[in-house]
């Protein structure tokens, strides 16, 4: 476990540096202003990863991480104002860019599989978006009518 935690910390730190660079170039936030927020996010991720390993439930680490992050940023929770202020220095897109950069490098080795997805996956994706949009609109219509709002 300790070996894993140390290695996770290193990988998170490397990723964090990439995100801080992106945050600097993209959002004009100097890296040292964003470091406290990045450390908070790293700590939350580490705790979530540890919980996934330590607890018997089949919840993935991202589940624990989401709950934990919401809890420590709730109004009234001690220290939450610091959590919110520090992490607000890091843009969501600044985290997404390095993920996609590494993903681009990584998918190269699966490129043949990706190409096979091709046009068919385009069709499926269109129905994926249409399905959510229409499904939500239909249910909203029923309930809003029932409530007498429309």
């Amino acid at each position, binding site marked *: 476990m300790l070996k894993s935690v140390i290695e*996770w910390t290193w990988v*998170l730190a*490397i*990723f964090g540096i*990439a*995100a801080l660079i*992106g945050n*600097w170039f*993209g959002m004009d936030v100097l890296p040292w202003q964003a470091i406290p927020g990045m450390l908070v*996010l790293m700590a*939350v991720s580490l705790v979530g*990863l540890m919980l996934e390993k330590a607890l018997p439930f089949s919840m*993935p680490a*991202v589940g624990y*991480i*989401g709950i934990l*992050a*919401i809890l420590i*940023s709730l*109004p009234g929770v001690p220290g939450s104002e610091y959590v919110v202020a520090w*992490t607000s220095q890091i843009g*969501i*897109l*600044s*985290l*997404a*860019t*390095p*993920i*996609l*950069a*590494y*993903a*681009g*490098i*990584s*998918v*190269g080795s*699966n490129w043949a599989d990706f190409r096979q*997805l091709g046009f068919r*996956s*385009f069709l*499926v*994706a*269109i*129905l*994926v*978006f249409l*399905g959510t*949009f*229409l*499904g*939500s*609109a*239909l*249910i*909203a*219509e029923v*309930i809003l009518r029932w409530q007498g709002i*429309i």
Partner: protein
Amino acid sequence: MEKVELKSVIKDWRLHAIAFILVAITEAIGLFSISVGPGVILLLPMLYAFFLGLGLYFTPLISEKNAKNAEPLIILGVTLLIAKIGVTIGPQIEAIIAAGPALLLQELGNLGTIFLALPLAVLLGFRRESIGMTHSIAREPNVGLIVNKFGFSSPEGRGVMAVYIFGTVFGAVFLGLISGLLATATPLHPLSFAMASGVGSGSMMAAASGSLIGAYPELEEQIVAFAGASNLLSLSTGLYFSIFIGLPLTEKLYSIMMRRSERKIAKGGGPNA
């Protein structure tokens, strides 16, 4: 995640240096938006980063080993992204509670994706990819869930990334186009479509609700309020909806469909018979 030794991943400085440079260049270029009718195609730094990274794989700069080493960075990077989404939701909790039961129940509309898209995906010949593709609209938390559960190089991971890439490039313009069209062409109320606009992505919500406002300017304030609240809810509950309902249901439906087609083949009636 245990497939590659993390120690060698950490020491792969060529990979990290290239990633740092990619991020710096693409973030410095910044965002472009191309107007297409009522919506926009958003070109974001992350898209350039993805395609530049992919291009580098085919140059001597990136080896097969570097590409393999990139995978743990994606998985752990996604955990940081989920943490960031979490701390964005916490402060908004009161607004979410006030938004009410209608908002909550229309989240179930996301299941429309599974019922509409999963049969098509299986029909088009996708196998386990279809689970990643159709369990949700493949936004960041859903990608995180699939990558976390199945791995990035799994068929499910490829499926969710395909829809994710589609959504990132065309999601906003597609929803922008169909929301105006559907609201004017169907008997459903524009406010129902306003709630549906909150799919959990800011740019998609903006495009979808924007074209509703274009069609019904007198409802502008209500449309914005409903779409924004629904988007908050999708952001905060989308992941757990996928974990507990969307993904299990997709896997269940998938196994039923596969069993049925196997039985058909066993009977001697092949797919073309």
